[in-house]
């Protein structure tokens, strides 16, 4: 080492206390010191010349500066060393001023000794200092601006002006941010939109500004200068073709609280927040399938038709309800309605009566709907075996796709189980017939009395001109039950019993009927038996016996209630042992009593016999209703199709059987439950598969993956008012049992609209497609998908803004509970000419102009309780003053009181404005509010203390306005996580240095502007945005950046790959390499040189440039 020591007198600051000659003598004794110099001001030009000269003449490779604190002149000397090609780490510092002469002026002898040690330590340290390598990062001349409020727009505009490409990313559907919501701005009282709109238009037209709305930043990686940014763009569902005509919002039946209007009014599911929005396109708020749609096997947009019913648009509702389902009138009556079990309203009170609404709309519109024949456009014919719900749905869907379809039905009637299984009192025959007629009207051919395997064969059809076949043969017989006495006269099997009945054949039952089973078929048989007894003038005597309890019964809950009303007796927890006979006729049923045991595979608790507990019921008719089975006639002449465990074997995705071109579905090949709606869904799927098969398309791409359903949060549900569903009218008990008339009545129009209005619009967009039909530009694209994108940018500006403090957290103030308590931002909307009241001040409860208004300051600000924030939100005093002034000018008689903690009006013209508004007659009272209470007429009683007069007040007001403070927005918190930025109190992004680097963040190359950094008004926001843009310009104008010298580095040979460094690095700059022998790798561009990793490293592999253990210890040990 050839070290020069340079001692600074600092104009006497140092030399006045220390004897520098003596210090020089002591320094001369250290090994490696070859030169000593002193100067009055070593940091001046003379000092610099001395250093240059010594380096040149004495061949120095190390420089020790004995002067002031390194924090002051360190960069000066480092720069000299760099320019002399020694590298900045060739300089070591001894702090002789702040560290010695300044603080030990009264102990010069001790100070002298300490100074010798300080110089000695610096020399010792210098020996271990080595040159630090620095790389170059070339810069992308582009920037990402996150947040499209006034800060983001301003920054983007500045950057574009400097020739930098800007990607302006906004999570909402339009640029504009908070400023777009304001009515006017203080202190000039000029219209916010008038200043903002030209900025918005400017950004939209600027070719260097690339705007992406509905977009989130999901990842930021790479070094400053060449950040890699991942973006996720949510679908807008509206294309660029949108002309902004607004026809769609009139068509949309779904209204939800408007975020842009801060809940002051509602918006539609398709909307544009304000007229000057950029981009000007509308967007659909579609959050996924609603729970009801998700639960429906056929995927019916239940929320869609419910929303349309609520608006009285029955024709359109019918179109939605009948879209995927040719049997809406039928399903409105007999569907097991899984949609209602999923309905979120059920968590508030009762599910929306979705099925009853479907029935209403189908009965209301269906009969008048004229069906026209669909032209046949494909040459292939399709055969459908079985005219039940699966077969007929498949036929309809294929006919609509342009195929000639023929449905072969073994029975003389169509409808399958809907016809032969369900009695008239549940499903009147004319309802079913109407819907079947609508299917045949499309051109579907129906061949009745044609039994597959007997009258024709499937293979035969395929050989004779049919391109494909769909087997929808159902389960046409009762399951065989092994029970003694099953052969006795008086024993009936439910499926056959109901079929005979429903085909109008003569059926009779005895005086004492017992039905075994707990499903829908058992109930249908039992209730039919009651009617048979009553229509023949007998008293009803029917008992249902079931092995488990009512809770496990598969039949619909409401239906067994009706049956019991009709006189049905039910015995639970009994299993049939034997049908007892006398002279070949049934005389009784012997039953084993059971109790509930462990749950079985279906989740229901299994019945366990109670040993020795046997009972008997007298009976002359026993109906066995325990399951259905397939009838395999159709297999004759149908090769390669097989039946296993009572079901046709199919591929569950394509519904294709073992034979190419032959498909199967419905009860005979169920993919879900054995219900009508599952059969309908299977029919639709089969039609798609057959179409794909015949058109030679891939079979397996038929079913899109089910998207996650949209459901309101528990918090939103809890806020809903509890009500109840509108009950359906039932036929009187006495009227119904002696006839086959329909038991359950339908809704009236008024009832249907009221019931439909209970819908919570879970998914917001109900997928009713009313907008698709209304849009003249064809701009609606409901199948748009989320897109991801990756960008490379040189620098990033975070301008993600703030949100208003949630005033509900201040419970005594009544916000969210009392309609006439609003926030200052909501008042901005009520005063805005473009707002919901067109600028007329109307109080929310009754629309009247309030005569007396109380504005309360510091709601959630300057508040040390756990529900508030400590900081002052900076803008609220003038925000309230502005609104008070606007109201006073429009309604001079309104009495306004502003309750403040301290009135703060710093800044240009603000104090003057406050005085002016005071003169306009606004009353300012210093004091905080204890409580706001609502009176019967919705006016508000406010208790507050005047802290000047120390008097407690209680007054009535028509409107209370809360000046809720500012907090970091959700977007700010999100970007802080993604970018690894620090957040301070209330979530605002921490700047690198509160004074000197107010727009830099902890991460190099990422800057912050506007209210994301802290509460501030619009001029300050704009100034900061321009400052951030200037920082980006200065950074990117350099062309490249040097990686910092003081960064961590890892010695590969010593690294043991433990990964501790990765886990402690606050910048995410250290990562473990992959492979068998992982080792730590430092990204020098991201490292900010804190050295935490070096201190934590257990193997000593990690070190920090300029602060190695040797360098630190050399200083310590002197």
């Amino acid at each position, binding site marked *: 080492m050839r070290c020069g020591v340079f001692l600074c007198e600092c104009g006497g600051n140092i030399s006045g206390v220390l004897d520098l000659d003596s210090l020089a003598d002591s320094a001369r004794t250290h090994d490696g010191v070859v030169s000593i110099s002193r100067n009055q001001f070593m940091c001046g030009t003379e000092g610099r010349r001395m250093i240059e000269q010594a380096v040149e003449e004495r061949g120095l490779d190390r420089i020790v500066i004995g002067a002031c604190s390194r924090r002051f002149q360190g960069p000066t000397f480092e720069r000299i060393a760099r320019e002399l090609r020694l590298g900045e780490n060739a300089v070591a510092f001894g702090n002789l001023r702040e560290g010695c002469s300044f603080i030990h002026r009264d102990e010069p002898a001790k100070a002298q000794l300490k100074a010798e040690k*300080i110089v000695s330590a610096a020399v010792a340290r210098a020996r271990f200092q080595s040159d630090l390598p620095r790389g170059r990062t070339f810069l992308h001349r582009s920037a990402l601006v996150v947040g499209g409020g006034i800060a983001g727009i301003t920054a983007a505009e500045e950057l574009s002006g400097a020739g930098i490409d800007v990607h302006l990313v906004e999570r909402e559907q339009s640029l504009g941010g908070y400023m777009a919501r304001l009515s006017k701005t203080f202190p000039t009282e000029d219209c916010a939109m008038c200043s903002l709109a030209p900025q918005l238009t400017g950004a939209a037209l600027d070719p260097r500004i690339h705007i992406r709305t509905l977009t989130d930043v999901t990842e930021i990686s790479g070094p400053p200068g060449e950040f890699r940014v991942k973006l996720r763009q949510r679908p807008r569902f509206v294309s660029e073709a949108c002309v902004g005509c607004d026809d769609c919002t009139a068509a949309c039946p779904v209204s939800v609280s408007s975020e842009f209007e801060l809940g002051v009014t509602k918006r539609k599911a398709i909307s544009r927040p304000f007229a000057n929005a950029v981009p000007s396109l509308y967007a659909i708020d579609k959050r996924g399938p609603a729970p009801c749609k998700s639960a429906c096997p056929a995927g019916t947009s239940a929320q869609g038709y419910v929303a349309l019913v609520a608006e009285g648009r029955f024709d359109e509702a019918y179109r939605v309800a009948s879209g995927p389902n040719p049997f809406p009138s039928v399903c409105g009556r007999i569907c097991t309605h899984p949609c209602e079990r999923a309905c979120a309203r059920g968590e508030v009170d009762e599910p929306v009566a979705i099925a009853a609404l479907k029935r209403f709309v189908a009965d209301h519109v269906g009969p008048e709907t004229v069906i026209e024949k669909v032209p046949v456009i494909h040459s292939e014919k399709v055969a459908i075996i079985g005219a039940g719900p699966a077969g007929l749905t498949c036929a309809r869907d294929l006919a609509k796709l342009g195929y000639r379809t023929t449905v072969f039905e073994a029975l003389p009637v169509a409808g399958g189980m809907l016809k032969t299984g369900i009695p008239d009192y549940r499903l009147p025959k004319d309802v079913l017939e109407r819907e079947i007629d609508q299917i045949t009207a499309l051109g579907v051919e129906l061949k009745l009395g044609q039994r597959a395997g007997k009258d024709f064969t499937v293979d035969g059809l395929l050989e004779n001109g049919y391109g494909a076949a769909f087997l929808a043969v159902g389960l046409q017989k009762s399951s065989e039950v092994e029970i003694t006495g099953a052969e006795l006269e008086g024993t009936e099997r439910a499926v056959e019993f109901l079929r005979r009945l429903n085909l109008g054949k003569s059926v009779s039952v005895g005086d004492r009927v017992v039905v075994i089973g707990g499903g829908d078929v058992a109930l249908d048989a039992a209730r039919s038996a009651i009617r048979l007894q009553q229509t023949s003038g007998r008293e009803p005597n029917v008992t249902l016996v079931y092995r488990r309890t009512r809770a496990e019964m598969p039949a619909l809950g409401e239906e067994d209630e009706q049956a019991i009303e009709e006189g049905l007796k039910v015995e639970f927890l009994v299993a049939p042992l034997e049908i007892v006979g006398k002279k070949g006729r049934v005389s009784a049923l012997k039953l084993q009593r059971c109790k509930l045991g462990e749950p079985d595979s279906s989740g229901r608790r299994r019945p366990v016999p109670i040993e020795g507990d046997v009972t008997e019921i007298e009976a002359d008719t026993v109906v066995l209703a325990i399951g259905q089975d397939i009838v395999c006639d159709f297999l004759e002449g149908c090769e390669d199709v097989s039946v296993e465990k009572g079901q046709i074997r199919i591929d569950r995705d394509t519904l294709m059987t073992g034979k190419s071109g032959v498909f199967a579905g419905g009860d005979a090949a169920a993919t879900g439950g054995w219900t009508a709606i599952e059969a309908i869904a299977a029919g639709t799927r089969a039609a798609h598969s057959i179409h794909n098969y015949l058109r030679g398309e891939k079979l397996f791409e038929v079913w899109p993956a089910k998207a996650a359903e949209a459901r309101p949060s528990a918090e939103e549900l809890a806020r809903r008012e509890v009500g109840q569903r509108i009950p359906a009218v039932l036929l009187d008990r006495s009227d119904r049992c002696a006839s086959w008339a329909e038991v359950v009545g339908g809704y009236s129009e008024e009832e249907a609209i009221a019931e439909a209005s209970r819908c919570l619009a879970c998914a917001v967009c109900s997928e009713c497609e009313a907008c698709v039909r209304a849009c003249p530009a064809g701009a609606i694209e409901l199948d748009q998908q989320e897109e991801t994108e990756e960008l490379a940018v040189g620098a990033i500006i975070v301008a993600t803004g703030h949100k208003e403090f949630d005033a509900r957290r201040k419970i005594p103030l009544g916000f969210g509970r009392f309609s006439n308590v609003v926030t200052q931002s909501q008042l901005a909307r009520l005063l805005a000419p473009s707002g919901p009241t067109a600028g007329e001040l109307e109080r929310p409860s009754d629309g009247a102009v309030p005569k007396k208004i109380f504005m309360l300051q510091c709601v959630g600000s300057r508040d040390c309780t756990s529900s508030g924030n400590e900081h002052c939100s900076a803008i609220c005093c003038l925000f309230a003053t502005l609104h008070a002034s606007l109201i006073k000018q429009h309604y001079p008689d309104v009495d306004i009181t502003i309750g403040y903690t301290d009135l703060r009006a710093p800044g240009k013209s603000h104090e003057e404005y406050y005085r002016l508004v005071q003169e306009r007659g606004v009353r300012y009272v210093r004091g905080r509010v204890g409580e706001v209470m609502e009176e019967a007429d919705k006016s508000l009683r406010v208790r507050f203390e005047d802290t000047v007069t120390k008097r407690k007040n209680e007054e009535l007001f028509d409107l209370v306005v809360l000046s809720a403070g500012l907090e970091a927005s959700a977007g700010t918190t999100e970007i802080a996580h993604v970018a690894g930025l620090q957040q301070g109190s209330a979530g605002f992004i921490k700047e690198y240095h509160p004074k000197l680097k107010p727009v830099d963040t902890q991460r190099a190359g990422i800057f912050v502007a506007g209210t994301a950094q802290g509460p501030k008004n619009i001029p300050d926001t704009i100034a900061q945005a321009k400052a951030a843009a200037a920082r980006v310009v200065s950074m990117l104008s350099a062309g490249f950046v040097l990686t910092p010298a003081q960064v961590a580095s890892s010695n590969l040979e010593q690294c043991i790959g433990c990964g501790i460094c990765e886990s402690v690095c606050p910048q995410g700059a250290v990562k473990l390499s992959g492979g068998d022998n992982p080792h730590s790798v430092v990204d020098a561009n991201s490292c900010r040189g804190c050295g935490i990793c070096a201190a*934590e490293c257990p193997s000593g592999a990690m070190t920090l440039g300029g602060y190695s253990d040797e360098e630190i210890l050399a200083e310590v040990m002197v």
Partner: protein
Amino acid sequence: MTSTAAENTRAPETEDGAERKIVAFFCRECAYAAADATGNARVSLPTTIRSVLVPCTGRVSPLHLLKALADGADGVYVAGCLEGQCHYREGNLHALDRIEFSRALLESVGVEPERVQMFTMSAADSPKFVAAARKMHETISALPPLKRK
């Protein structure tokens, strides 16, 4: 600050009359800045304290603390940012962990744990910086010189 200079109380001398040596690691972001502010205000401080600049107290490892004691210091302290104010998120908390660890280690070999301490302060808080320096000086001066074998 000038008033502090005026009321400067002379550091208590040790019983044996010999001056102690205290090594102080100062974080660049806070304590070192507070030290500079203190110096500029000409506040008198005990000459026992020898400062070492570190970028973050998170850089200070037990090795540095213990080696300082092993090599002649009678006390060591670390002065960093206030909790939650670390410029590198949790560097000061890492430092605190290592100080606790070092204190436990010292105690197990019969060395007074108060020879190693941690203080936190903001860059603006010169009085707190002075108080920390004086407290450390008093603590170490009240203890005998550290015996090494």
